[in-house]
């Protein structure tokens, strides 16, 4: 596992505050390789027209030349005036791809075929309708855990003729959390603080009492979706259980039998997820930080975030 990249966290370039609008100072434009090839073709045809003194040839060469010149304005304009309202990213586990959701809007005119990207890749081209909030997503691969500032997002377009490429680079003031990569294993803790040795979380049979259904929310464990009510067409509901046996576990960093810190964190991550899925009450003990037992999405995030930033300089 690669060591966390501290420098990436520390690196704080000029960042833009949102919302921001692409203006003339930020939008650049250059011919694409196709544009240069087109220019070469036109030049060859111009030489032909001069040689044969052919007015139709001149006319066509000049028409195509003018068209490409005009297309430059259209390309530039396609990007200008687009507003980025917000940028957000859901936390992901290391090694997965973080998805930035950009809320964008164009106050005037439809915008066609605009790509948003972070790395060199081929993004899907987006169309932005006039005066409508659109959401576009940008992918970025992650390698290690931590809290990172969103990198530079490039918005670009070649519309309409593909002869020119206009682009602008934004570095939104947005950070995202990358949890440690979960590594599956037994729910073993080695020697617990009390000195007793046990494997797994003691789950008391029958303690998981079904208490009712609640409206499904993104993030609820799939295993708890009430398929029965879904198949009846009632909607998506999640089964709720009371108590989860009433047990409460402390997931202890020092109790994980592993030499490598990153590996330990990964194991703890896995345990947090398992405990969450079992609807158990769990707490987290890290050197220097203890999170009291609890449950729910917010609690899970608190624990995972603590694991993500453990041992790193929090800025």
């Amino acid at each position, binding site marked *: 596992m690669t060591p966390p990249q501290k420098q990436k966290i520390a690196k704080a370039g000029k960042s833009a505050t949102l919302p921001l609008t692409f203006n003339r100072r930020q939008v650049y434009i250059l011919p694409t390789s196709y544009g240069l090839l087109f220019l070469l073709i036109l030049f060859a045809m111009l030489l032909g027209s001069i040689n044969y003194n052919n007015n139709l040839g001149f006319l066509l060469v000049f028409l195509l030349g003018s068209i490409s010149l005009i297309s430059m304005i259209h390309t530039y304009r396609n990007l200008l005036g687009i507003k980025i309202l917000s940028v957000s990213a859901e936390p992901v586990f290391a090694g997965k791809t973080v998805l930035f959701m950009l809320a964008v809007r164009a106050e005037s005119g439809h915008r066609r075929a605009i790509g948003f990207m972070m790395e060199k890749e081929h993004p899907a*081209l987006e169309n932005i309708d006039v005066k409508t909030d659109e959401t576009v997503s940008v992918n970025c691969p992650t390698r290690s855990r931590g809290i990172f500032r969103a990198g530079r997002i490039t918005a670009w377009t070649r519309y309409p003729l593909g002869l020119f490429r206009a682009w602008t680079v934004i570095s939104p003031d947005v950070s995202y959390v990358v949890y440690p990569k979960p590594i599956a294993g037994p729910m073993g803790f080695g020697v617990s603080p009390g000195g007793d040795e046990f494997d797994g979380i003691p789950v008391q049979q029958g303690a998981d009492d079904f208490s009712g259904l609640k409206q499904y929310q993104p993030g609820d464990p799939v295993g708890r979706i009430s398929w029965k009510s879904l198949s009846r067409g009632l909607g998506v509901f999640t089964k709720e259980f009371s108590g989860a046996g009433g047990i409460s576990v402390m997931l202890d960093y020092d109790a994980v039998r592993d030499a490598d810190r990153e590996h330990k964190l990964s194991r703890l991550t896995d345990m947090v997820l398992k405990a969450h899925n079992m609807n158990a009450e769990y707490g987290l003990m890290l050197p220097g930080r203890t999170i009291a037992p609890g449950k729910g999405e917010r609690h899970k995030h608190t624990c995972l975030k603590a694991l993500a930033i453990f041992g790193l300089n929090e800025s």
Partner: protein
Amino acid sequence: MNEPYKTIFPILTALIVAIFPHIGNLPVWIILWCVVMWGYLPLSFKFKWPRPGIKIRRLLTAIGIIGLLFTYSRRLDQNAYLGLLAVMAALKPFEIASHRDRMITVFLAYFIVITSLFLAETLAITLYMLLSVGITTAVLIRINDPAGRFKDNFKLAALIMAQAIPLMILLFLLFPRIEGSLFGLSLTNTGKSGFSDTLAPGSVTNLVKNDDVAFRVLFERSIPPAPLLYWRGIVFQDFDGRKWHVDKQTRQWHAPPEGKNPVSYTITLEPHNNRWLFALDMPATIPRSAIFYKDYTLRTRRSIKRKMRYSMISNTRYHPAGENGWTLRKSIRLPEGVNPKTRALAARITKNARTVDEKVGRILDYFRTGGFSYTLKPPRLGANSVDDFIFQSKKGYCEHYASAFAFMLRSIGIPARIVGGYQGGEVNPYADYLIVRQSDAHVWVEIWYPKTGWNRVDPTAAVAPERISKGIRGTLSPDDLPGFFGRRYLGALSGVIEQIRFGWDAINTRWSALFEGYSYSKQRALLEKIGITSGGLAVSLKALLLLLVVIGMIVGAYAWFALKSPCRKPDKVKKYYARFCKKLSRAGLARKAAQGPIDYMNHVLKNRPDLKDEVTEITELYVRLRYRGQTSRSVLSDFIQKVRVFKPARKESKD
């Protein structure tokens, strides 16, 4: 929509539209090749047939190139280049999986469109090319915006073209032109019909069957009367017993003969693949790029393969200067032994005549009274063609009469030669210019008079005077006339067709004068008009500079409008709503920071029920404009108007 409809079919359409006008210049196998490839592709999508993979595509490319080598190995010209483009364009649609391939295929379509510079520069072709560029541009937009609608693609292509056309016109007018050719390459055109450098019985008759335009003439003043419209082109000097030949040794001459009654005109000559230029008898000036010869004919340096325009002055009355003895001796030379009966006849009928004039008159009288007739369908003649004509068939066309006449004159020692060209022409009623067709082809005779020099004598005028006064169409029976089916079978409708033909010809001629005629010299004249005069390279540089400045200004103006306006429009709504709020706040009803327009309206209505109508209306319009996306111009102007006239009284009476 699936892939083929999104990009492949539009690209195919662009290629087909681009290649269509070239069909005539492509060999049959390439046309079939294109039809097969372009036909297979859509069918393969419909019936799920396999599409060729990379290996088969390579094989097909190799076959195509071998085919091209076989077809064009003898002559590598623009048709070979076109053939190569067509063969490539036929295969390319099979590999357009990536954006790069698609872009290159569309460029190929543009390439084929520009290749039309090898075609004629007619108005129809020019309009077709504009259409073709429009379609190709729409397809280019399509592949850069695959999610868009075709209609929008076409609309944008039309908009871009409309914005580009002013720039195009500027570039066309101001881009520095050069004289002559850049690399010395010229087009190889299979020349159209026209005179050749020999004249045999039947050669003019063949031409007359052709209704193609030979040239068009625009006179500066009125069109001269028909009997003066002799268009001189070639002089046939040597007779070999059957054919008349152009004298290859004719020397260049410095100046045309003197004359009177000058006529100024401009000729637009269709390409005929030979060097001669036609001019009204007798040329008084030598056009640029032409050489004047001792036999009073004009020729260009290279054969004429493109439409050519030249302005001239001719003298309808002329008195050529003296001729050297060598030329005169050549002009009475005849081969030994041919046409003995004609020689005897000529000697007999001119026996008692003393002057040249008298002798000429006697021979013409013989033609007039000897039972000769004028026809396009003369019988075949034997080895002694003149004897056969005069004593047996007595039927002939202008070349028979001219040949017999010149032969007889030479046999009695009068220098004579045959001049070939055209006689007459049709006046286009819509534009007052003359259309001279191949069917107006004519030959006549020039005789050397000791006192007045070379003079035109037309034996055809003696036999069929209406040929000269009424032209070919008034002379021959409809069955003999060349031309389209309609003249014979459509009766009254043919008149309408004729009118349409004249109208279209008039439009085309005007176009060709404006467009094709624009050249180095016209550009100089234009630049002079706008004040750029100093000679040589400086003019070109100044023109280029001017061009850059003007284009920079236009593009700048476009950009300014295009990039400014999007920020402006919504502001108007905002601005006028702010004005509305300000008016209300002056009346004591200020809008709070967090108050939405509806809340604000309710607040105002509670305090000032008297303003109900206006405030409700304005707020409703504002909400429509701002939040419901109804941005139509009428709603906006309505809103602005209402805000303008809104004048809330300061306070209500009861308050």
